[in-house]
C-alpha cells in the first residue's frame, strides 16, 4: 500500500458511521487496501499522475468552514430543492426544506435505510474504480433521492458542494444515490465550486443512479473548483427498459480533476444523451473517462465531449462504448473535439468502440485542431479584431453544447462565466437577450 492508501484507511477509522453501512465500508476498505496503486503503466491512469494526491496527502477531514464563502460564490438562480455542503459537511442553514424522497443518509427512515443498504455500491463496480472503493470505505453521510413509481419531483434537486481553504490539507467525501422507480422523473444538478482563494483539499465524489423502466432524468455535474483543489469523482448509471438519462457535465480548473462516467444499458429501448465540456488552463489537468455498456438490444447512445485546452494544461478524454453480442440494433455515436489554444497545451483523446454484435450502427470520431482560419478571416473581414474573433470562435465551440442544455438556469449560470474565461471578444457574444 502507498502512504496515501494508508492515510485514507486511517481516516476511515476516525469516522462515526452508522452500523448499517458497516458492510459496505468493510468491503470498500478491503478493495482499497488490496488495490495496486496506479502508475504510468496503468491504462486507466496513463496520462493522469496521482502524484499531487501523494505529495499533498490529506490527513484529516475537512471541517465546516461556516458561511465565509457566501460573498465569493454565486449560486445558480433556480427554484429548486437545495442542499448545501461545505467541505463535505451538510449546512442546514443554507439548505431548503426537503420534499418526500429526498433525504440525507443521516436522517433516513427505516425504509430508506433499507433501500440505501440494498442499492448503495451496487451500480458502481468498486473493483474497477479505485476511488469508488475509497468512497465505499468512507461511506458515511450522503444524499438519497428516491422518486416513487410514476412520480415526478416538483422541483429540481440542486446539490451545491462548496470547498473552502483549510489550514491543512483535508478531504471530503460526497455520496449521492438516485433511485428512480418505473415511470418517474427527476432533475438533479450537482454543482461543485470553490472560492478563488488557494485551495488545498481533496474531494472524492461518487454518484450512483438507477433509472427504472420508462423513467427519465436530467443530470448535471458542473465542476468549477479552482486551481489547487484535487477532485476525483464518478457518475455511475444503470438504465432499464426505455429509461432515459440526459447528462451534461462541465469541468474547469484543478491540478488533478478526474471524472468517470459509467453507463450501463440494462433494458431495451434505453437512451443515453451525454454532453461534456472541459476547459483546463494554466497547468491544470482534467481527465474524463467514460464507458458505456450496451448489454441489450435496441438502445441508443449519443455522446459528445468538447474541450479547449490552453497554456500548459493537459486534458485526457477516454470514451469507450462496448456493444455486447446480444445488443443488436444498437445506435451509438461518440464525438470528441478539441481545440488547443497554446503550443504547450496537451490532449490525449481515445475514443474506443468495441462491437461484438453484427447489426448495429455506430460511429465515433475525435479531432484536435486549432481554430478555423476561414472563420477567423470571416469575422475579421467584418471589422472584428483577430483577438476578439478567437474569443468568439472559442466560445462558440462550447456554446454550441451549452445551447442544448435543457435547464436554462444552468445555461445562464455558465455562459457569463465562460465569457470571462475566453476573454474580451466573447463578452460580445452570449449576452444578447432575445425578446
Amino acid at each position, binding site marked *: 500500500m502507498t502512504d496515501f492508501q494508508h492515510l485514507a484507511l486511517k481516516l476511515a477509522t476516525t469516522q462515526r458511521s452508522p452500523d448499517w453501512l458497516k458492510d459496505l465500508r468493510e468491503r470498500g476498505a478491503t478493495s482499497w487496501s488490496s488495490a495496486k496503486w496506479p502508475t504510468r503503466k496503468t491504462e486507466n491512469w496513463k496520462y493522469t499522475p496521482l502524484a499531487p494526491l501523494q505529495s499533498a496527502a490529506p490527513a484529516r477531514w475537512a471541517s465546516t468552514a461556516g458561511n465565509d464563502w457566501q460573498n465569493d460564490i454565486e449560486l445558480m438562480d433556480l427554484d429548486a430543492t437545495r442542499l448545501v455542503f461545505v467541505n463535505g459537511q451538510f449546512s442546514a442553514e443554507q439548505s431548503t426544506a426537503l420534499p418526500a424522497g429526498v433525504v440525507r443518509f443521516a436522517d433516513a427512515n427505516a425504509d430508506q435505510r433499507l433501500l440505501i443498504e440494498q442499492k448503495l455500491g451496487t451500480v458502481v463496480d468498486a473493483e474497477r474504480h479505485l476511488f469508488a472503493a475509497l468512497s465505499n470505505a468512507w461511506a458515511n453521510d450522503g444524499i438519497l433521492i428516491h422518486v416513487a413509481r410514476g412520480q415526478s419531483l416538483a422541483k429540481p434537486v440542486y446539490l451545491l458542494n462548496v470547498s473552502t481553504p483549510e489550514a491543512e490539507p483535508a478531504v471530503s467525501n460526497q455520496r449521492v444515490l438516485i433511485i428512480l422507480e418505473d415511470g418517474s422523473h427527476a432533475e438533479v444538478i450537482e454543482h461543485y465550486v470553490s472560492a478563488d482563494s488557494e485551495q488545498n483539499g481533496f474531494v472524492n465524489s461518487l454518484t450512483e443512479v438507477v433509472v427504472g423502466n420508462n423513467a427519465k432524468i436530467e443530470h448535471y455535474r458542473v465542476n468549477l473548483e479552482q486551481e489547487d483543489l484535487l477532485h476525483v469523482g464518478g457518475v455511475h448509471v444503470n438504465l432499464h427498459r426505455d429509461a432515459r438519462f440526459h447528462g451534461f457535465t462541465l469541468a474547469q480548473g484543478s491540478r488533478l480533476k478526474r471524472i468517470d462516467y459509467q453507463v450501463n444499458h440494462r433494458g431495451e429501448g434505453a437512451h443515453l444523451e451525454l454532453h461534456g465540456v472541459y476547459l483546463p488552463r494554466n497547468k491544470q489537468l482534467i481527465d474524463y473517462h467514460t464507458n458505456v455498456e450496451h448489454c441489450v438490444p435496441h438502445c441508443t447512445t449519443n455522446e459528445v465531449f468538447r474541450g479547449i485546452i490552453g497554456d500548459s494544461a493537459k486534458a485526457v478524454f477516454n470514451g469507450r462504448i462496448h456493444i455486447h453480442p446480444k445488443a443488436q440494433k444498437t445506435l451509438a455515436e461518440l464525438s470528441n473535439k478539441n481545440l488547443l489554444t497554446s503550443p504547450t497545451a496537451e490532449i490525449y483523446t481515445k475514443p474506443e468502440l468495441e462491437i461484438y454484435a453484427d447489426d448495429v450502427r455506430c460511429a465515433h470520431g475525435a479531432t484536435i485542431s486549432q481554430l478555423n482560419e476561414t472563420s477567423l*478571416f470571416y469575422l*475579421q*473581414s467584418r471589422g*472584428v*479584431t483577430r483577438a476578439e474573433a478567437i474569443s468568439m470562435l472559442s466560445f462558440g*465551440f462550447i456554446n454550441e453544447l451549452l445551447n442544448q442544455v435543457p435547464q436554462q438556469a444552468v445555461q445562464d449560470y455558465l455562459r457569463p462565466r465562460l465569457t470571462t474565461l475566453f476573454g474580451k471578444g466573447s463578452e460580445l*457574444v452570449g449576452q444578447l437577450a432575445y425578446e
Partner: protein
Amino acid sequence: MLSIKGLCAKVEEKDILKGLDIVVRPGEIHAIMGPNGSGKSTLGNVLSGRPGYEATAGSVTFKGQDLLALDTEERAREGIFLAFQYPVEIPGVSNMEFLKASVDAMRKHAGLPGLSSVEFMKLARETSKRVDLDVAFLKRGVNEGFSGGEKKRNEIMQMMLLEPTLCILDETDSGLDIDALQVVANGVNSMRDGNRSFIVVTHYQRLLDYIVPDYVHVLAGGRIVKSGDKSLALELEAKGYGWLEDEVA
C-alpha cells in the same frame, strides 16, 4: 476611391494576378467577368486581406491610403466589404451576436457610440426584412444550416448593416434562383447613393440585368484584357471568352 496599379498576387506559391489595373471612382459599379481560374475571386480576397493571398507587386490605394498595409479588420473598418462566395458557418455564435459585434466594431472606429441591444435588434429586424430573411435566422448560429440563398441574403444584410464604402460581391449570384437574385440585386441597388462603389464579380451576364454596371472588365490570365460598358457583358454572353484570349494572344 480605389486605385489598383500593376497588382500581382500569389496564392500558395502560384502567381494568380499578374499586373492588374483598375480605378474605381465614387458611386461606380464595376463588373468583373472572366473564365474559371482567371483570378476573379483572388482579387476580392487580396483586397480584403485574406491570409494566404499575398500581394507581391503593384499598389492598391483606397481613400488615399495604402490598403495593402492594413490588417484585415482595419480594411473592413475603413469601408471594404467582401460578400463571400462561400459564407462561413459558425455554430455556437448566433447571427445576431455576430452582427452586433461587427456593427459595434465599425461604430467604434467611426467614433460613434455603440448601439444598445434593443436599438440593435430593431435595426437588425428591419434590415432582415429588406433582404426577405426571416427574423428567426438572426437567432441561429451564423449561417448554420442556411441554404445557399439564405447565406447570400445574410451577406447582403451584413453589407446593409455595415454600410461600407466599397462593396465587393464575389459571385454572389452563384447558386441563386431568380427570386433570390432579385432580392440581392434590389439590396445592392437600394444601397447606391452616388458615393458607395461596387465591384461585382460574376460568371454570368444575368446578374447584370439587375445590377447595371458602369464598366465591365474581363479578367483573364491574371490581367484585365478588355474593358467596356455593359454591352461587353452581352457580347461575352453571346461569344464566350475564347475570342478574347485569342485576341490577347
